[in-house]
């Protein structure tokens, strides 16, 4: 890795290389969202960032869910409920974004998605994923 702008606050590092890397990519996409909302130069389309987020959230959740299944993690169901909450929350906001009738409204919904995503990431990584990665590391599942 290179010296870089810090995307993921250090407190979220869980010492599981794959899960940490995937969380970091989610923070990068979150930052792209903020970058675009602040109308910096070279911004991507909000619509493309949302698609990227959706795709990567699905890929990351699948990774964790496979690891939980393979390792016999007994909090799997509960953990997956947390994943569903994010999928549903972002899905509903994404639909509102697509239905927005003005650029202003679209930006407001995009801001709501950014806030929702950050809050979810902070809670989920700090508590739910921390328990999972501790278990996986004890089982030596990388």
């Amino acid at each position, binding site marked *: 890795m290179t010296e870089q702008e810090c995307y993921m606050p250090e407190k979220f590092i869980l010492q599981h290389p794959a899960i940490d890397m995937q969380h970091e990519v989610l923070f990068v996409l979150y930052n792209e969202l903020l970058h675009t909302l602040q109308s910096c130069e070279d911004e991507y389309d909000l619509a493309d960032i949302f*698609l990227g987020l959706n795709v990567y959230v699905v890929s990351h959740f699948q990774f964790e869910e496979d690891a939980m299944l393979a390792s016999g993690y007994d909090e799997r169901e509960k953990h997956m409920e947390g994943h569903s909450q994010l999928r549903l929350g972002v899905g509903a906001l994404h639909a509102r974004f697509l239905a927005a009738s003005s650029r202003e409204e679209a930006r407001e919904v995009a801001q709501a998605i950014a806030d929702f995503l950050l809050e979810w990431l902070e809670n989920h990584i700090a508590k739910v994923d921390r328990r999972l990665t501790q278990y996986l590391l004890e089982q030596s599942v990388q």
Partner: protein
Amino acid sequence: MAFSVSKEGDRVTIRLPEVFGFSVRSDFKKATTGHSTSTSFFLDFRDVTRMDSSALGMLLLLRETSGGFYADITIANVRPDIRKLLQLANFHTLFKIQ
């Protein structure tokens, strides 16, 4: 080797620099946007020895700006340690990595 781009028909080849990270974000975005939907991208990683998570974000956004599931992106000539990073990020499920 610095960042370089060439285009032949519908195929864009990008040779990435030794450090693929936030510092090339602007060049990468310029090189990868504004093409027709039939464009394929060949990302030559032969010089890349370091890569950060912002590079992974750029790859994901390229995938979406060029057709999502249907995007035609090849990541080639990847060194083993960089391949490992792509795998940790689960990118082998989203991209063709040669």
